[in-house]
């Protein structure tokens, strides 16, 4: 960060991330999708921070079309891995605005997703980088990169919003 951020930027970034988390936890998929900008986006769940997605497999590497498929699948009622759906509660913390450009801000955060399914609960710790585009009426998601803090242990059902 080169200059001191104004309070309005910080608060509005926080508010956006909290809204994204709340819509994800509530499985309000269409509203969650509407947080993303029209056109090119990247929704990426990567195995590590410094990975080349053209050389290594990711958990999710969605462009706009794939993200829409993902939401359509969730909403179909036929995605059995979310019937019943995983119950999640996520805490978004350690939020830092690491770049504030004319068109977008880049933000990093630690996100702890508590997940309950069939009487068992787990905690999925993530490092998340968001690129939020600036529009007249607020921010829109351009990129979301999620890195699992523990990439080597087997994952269970992670078919909810990551």
């Amino acid at each position, binding site marked *: 960060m080169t200059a001191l951020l104004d309070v309005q930027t910080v608060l509005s970034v926080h508010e956006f991330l909290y809204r994204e988390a709340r819509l994800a936890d509530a499985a309000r998929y269409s509203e969650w999708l509407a947080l993303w900008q029209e056109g090119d986006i990247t929704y990426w*769940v990567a*195995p590590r921070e410094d*990975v080349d*997605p*053209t*050389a*290594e*497999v*990711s*958990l*999710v*590497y969605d462009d706009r*079309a*794939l993200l*829409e*498929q*993902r939401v*359509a*699948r969730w909403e*179909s009622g*036929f*995605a*059995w*891995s979310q*019937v019943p759906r995983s119950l999640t509660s996520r805490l978004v913390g350690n939020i830092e605005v690491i770049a504030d450009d004319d068109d977008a801000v880049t933000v990093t955060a630690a996100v702890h997703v508590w997940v309950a399914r*069939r009487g068992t609960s787990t905690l999925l710790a993530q490092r998340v980088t968001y690129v939020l585009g600036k529009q007249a009426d607020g921010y829109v998601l351009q990129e979301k990169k999620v890195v699992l803090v523990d990439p*080597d*242990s*087997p*994952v*269970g*059902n*992670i*078919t909810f919003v*990551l």
Partner: protein
Amino acid sequence: MGFDVDAVIGPGWVDGSIYTDEEIFRAELDRIFKKTWLYVAHESEVPEVGDYQRRELAGEPVIVVRDRDGELRVLLNRCRHRGNLVCQEQAGNSQFFRCQYHGWTFTNRGDLVGVPYPQSYDESFSKDAMGLTPMPRMETYRGFIFVSFDPDVPPLAEHLGAEAIALIDLFVSQSPIGEIYVRAGVQRVEYQGNWKFIGMDGYHTNFVHRSVEFLQHAGKVATEGAPDDGKPAAEIGPLEFGKSPDKLGNKAWSLGRGHVHINNAPQRMARAETTLAALTSTPEGAEYVASMQASYGERARTLICAPDPHLGLFPNLQIIGVQIRVIEPQAANRTVVVQYPALLGGVPQEINVQRLRKHEWFFSPAGFGSPDDYEVFERNQAGLAAVAEPKVVLSRGMGAETELADGVVEGAYTDEVPQRGQLERWAELMRATGVTAGSTS
């Protein structure tokens, strides 16, 4: 142990306890996983001298290493002193493995070369006899490394058989230079269910993968096996809800020795023109098609359009789509699946990128296909807790099979031929005597 194999398996049925009973599970580790060939790694994962990978076989920690002489070795990851792990990292490159408990040091050939303060051992102590324990048997086929805990297993080629060998060849022959590289990362998934649920099942496709069929009908992805509509084929099964996929001509095979195969080439070849047209519409795809034709001639068309071996090698390996998938049983009700996408040698990078994206789409733990399989396996495990009617029915297509050459049995796509083939082998190995006394009783 006390259980009677013939009380839990019969023609077209098994007892649910084979999926739920912990005693049976421990017997499976001894009588199946310790008694036959297991896949452990691919040679391309340890290309350089000193490269190593840690793996788990039947719950035991092993190291796959290319030693200082360039030879492949599979060694138990257990210090010969007090049994500590000698290798901590998942993968790396090292000339030595040093136990950090008391400093015993082994070369990457497994030889014990360093014991601190050796004068306190008497003359009967010999470093030469105290190297890291090698797996009793190791053989490779086209870079696939198989090992066995049992020194008396028959040769690997006999275990695999001609059909399985041809299907491994098919997988590798997607590369114009016949090389695959297993170094595109790994996905580890765990489900709360028995390892034997991972089979080869044509019957489930339209039901478990209903969401994919939904996406097809919503016009978001192409329908494989449907009349050629000009859309490129996705890497998915013959999904048309309400219509029997048997009409597409796909077949389900039992290859013998528990190995199984779904032949989905008929469905894929029905869309060959579209697949080729989509590929050749890009310069990278056109280059790939041309190099395949140069290497394989007429056969290139099949290798490009129907490359999925859909092969299950009993008990711990599947080769499906672009991936090598390894089954690591943890308990009767818990299984880890490790998925390694394989990249092709000698192709434009874009072809390999497409393979990664195609794999993620269906098979990723956050993808659109496999997670629904794992969900159904967990439901299956939960359902089997009801034991009033304990039989699990696997009789679909029984009596209607066709015997092909070499003990290969073919059924319709949705027939339970693969399930019966796997479980017949399961019963054969579970019946065998010679289990170490006291190990499971």
